């Protein structure tokens, strides 16, 4: 077994700028005049602790020749940073990695495309940027064009392409790279279903050709099918390295298992801050158990209990629902009135807020919810992400697609009018 990638305690640190607080307008002129000096002082002094973000920390792993390794983790876990470091787009801050072989990275579809140039010209341009030699492109041109299904439009400017054609052409160029090590970031999340399938097929071919592949994706099914081994990144660190099946199931257990009820009995260790502490969160319905999921026709209640520590605090409680794809579906806020916060002062003590989600609001699929406490003027006082998660299932009562999900973050039942306005 030959090792082709060896990463040893890789780390990548970013400096994140602090947001400047709002200033009165009259200071604006003064600030404009002193801007160059402020800029210099902020550049020259050493960054303080809270401005530093470790996107990767102490990452060590090895990959043997011919292995196809999946990389999973939540957004911001360091997956893309790892690929950027390995493809030499950015330098690591600490540690080192050794790669044996030509590295091809596919972090985007259509890298280097110029909208004013034709499809054929862009194949050469993008191919060269990705590291192909001209004679290699000559040799593969027909294959690339056939794969992308753009034969008739080869000499059309790509700005006239549909987005589907653009994506297909971009992927086709990249898919015909022949590096020994291929780094792929979530590029299959685009394009129509048929083309995605074709791309996955092509990737399967790549895998059987003995090439080494690192594949970042949120598509766990694809990872499971293509990769024997997976790496799970969490907060910049390598959390788990092993057989894909095992890694994926641990990952799912942590993040995607339905959390329908959570209780913190110790006030001191409960999530919160000096103003509020959360006692419990719960999602439930009268008729159905959350374990099997709620049907779309079921009203659901989301409940939070928390201790208010400081008497007289003005606060509002909000829930923000996200779909499985991390899309915010909507936010609902307690006692939302025109007058805002007046009348929302709380005494010290344990409070319960219940939010009633009506039937026929949510779409089928998984949701997870963030709990947000707002204080005056809408500032966020405390936020608990992934507080709860649950599934909505389609019982088939409502019309629409029977076998796949109607797209959309929500699926409200709305009032429709129908009338016949003319004869014949």
């Amino acid at each position: 077994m030959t090792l082709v990638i060896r990463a040893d305690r890789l780390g990548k640190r970013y400096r994140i700028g602090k947001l400047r607080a709002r200033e009165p307008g009259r200071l604006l002129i003064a600030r404009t005049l002193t801007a160059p000096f402020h800029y210099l002082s902020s550049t020259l002094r050493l960054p303080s602790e809270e401005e530093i973000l470790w996107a990767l920390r102490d990452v060590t792993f090895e990959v043997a020749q011919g292995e196809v390794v999946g990389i999973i983790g939540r957004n911001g876990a360091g997956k893309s940073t790892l690929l950027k470091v390995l493809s030499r787009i950015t330098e690591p801050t600490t540690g080192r990695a050794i790669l044996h072989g030509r590295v091809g990275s596919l972090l985007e579809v259509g890298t280097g495309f110029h909208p004013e140039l034709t499809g054929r010209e862009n194949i050469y341009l993008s191919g060269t940027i990705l590291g192909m030699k001209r004679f290699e492109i000559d040799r593969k041109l027909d294959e690339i064009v056939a794969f992308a299904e753009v034969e008739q439009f080869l000499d059309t400017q790509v700005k006239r392409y549909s987005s589907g054609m653009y994506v297909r052409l971009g992927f086709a160029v990249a898919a015909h790279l022949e590096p020994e090590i291929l780094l792929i970031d979530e590029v299959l999340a685009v394009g129509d279903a048929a083309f995605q399938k074709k791309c996955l097929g092509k990737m399967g071919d790549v895998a059987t050709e003995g090439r080494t592949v690192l594949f970042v994706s949120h598509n766990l099914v694809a990872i499971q099918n293509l990769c024997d081994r997976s790496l799970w990144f969490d907060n910049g660190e390598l959390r788990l390295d092993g057989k894909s099946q095992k890694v994926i199931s641990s990952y799912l257990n942590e993040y995607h298992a339905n959390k329908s009820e959570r209780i913190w009995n110790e006030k001191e260790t409960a999530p919160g801050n000096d103003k509020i502490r959360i006692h419990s969160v719960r999602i439930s319905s009268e008729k159905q158990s959350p374990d099997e999921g709620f049907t779309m026709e079921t009203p659901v209640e989301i409940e939070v209990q928390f201790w208010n520590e400081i008497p007289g605090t003005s606060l509002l409680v909000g829930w923000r629902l996200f779909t499985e794809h991390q899309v915010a579906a909507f936010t609902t806020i307690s006692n939302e009135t025109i007058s805002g916060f007046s009348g929302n002062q709380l005494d010290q003590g344990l409070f319960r807020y219940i939010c009633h989600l009506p039937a026929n609001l949510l779409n089928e699929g998984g949701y997870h919810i963030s709990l947000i406490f707002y204080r005056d003027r809408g500032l966020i006082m405390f936020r608990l992400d992934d507080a709860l998660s649950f599934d909505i299932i389609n019982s088939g009562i409502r019309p629409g697609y029977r076998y796949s999900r109607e797209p959309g973050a929500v699926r409200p039942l709305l009032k429709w009018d129908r009338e016949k306005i003319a004869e014949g």
Partner: protein
Amino acid sequence: MKSMTLQDLHTVVIEPTRGWSALGLKDLWNYRELLLFLVWREIQGAYRQTALGTTWLFLRPILHMLVLSFVFGLIVGVESGDIPYPLFVLAALLPWGFFSNGVIRGSRSLVQNMHVISKVYFPRLVIPIAGVTSGLVDLGASFCVFIVAIFFFHIPLRWEMVTIPLFVLVALGFALAVSLWLATLSVKFRDVEYAVNFILMTLMYLSPVIYPVDIVPEPFRFIYALNPMTGVILGFRWALLGDGAPPSVHFYISVFIVVFATISGAYIFRRTERTVVDIL
């Protein structure tokens, strides 16, 4: 796929670089095809979707020459000796147009190509070099215009013309040096975009584009001649029109300045390039 051993594969070590790094010229050579493609993209991309297309390459020097001849030759009445003023100006516009186009393209190239830089690795030096060298195409077009003009004014061709590539090389080096410095700065300071035009305008007035060098007062001559574009423009006039003397010691000093500025610019650029993706 043929079986491979580790010896066949080239090895890349990725680790943080401290201090100054080598220029990576070998890596640059390996990516020479990319350089050609980027030059080609710059030219193609710029003139597609224009009504006149690549005619602009020829039109620009002609219009520029006409305007300058009208204002400075006719209205102001700048003396240009035995040489017709339009030719006098055009001979200077050849290297000047090349230089200023090169600086404009080269200095903004890094920021403009950010979407590519953040997605794929290649030696970043390719980008400003491509920006600057793409000006050679404009130069070629202007040169054709010049040849036509020479016949129009019945001026004979001179054998000294063969030295032109030398002056072009100096102008290229200087444009590259300025571009490397500005491109590096533009990563942190977007102000550069606004500064470039001003710098170029100033430099044009400080070079003998529209006036002969003799009217520069004697005490300033030496400093004036240190501007590499002065030497290049005088060289062009000498080689093409037989105006003035062949390059003097001033010119060689300015060549030395160009070499120094280019090399230092390349090192500065290399130093910034490793974290450029994190900043932009």
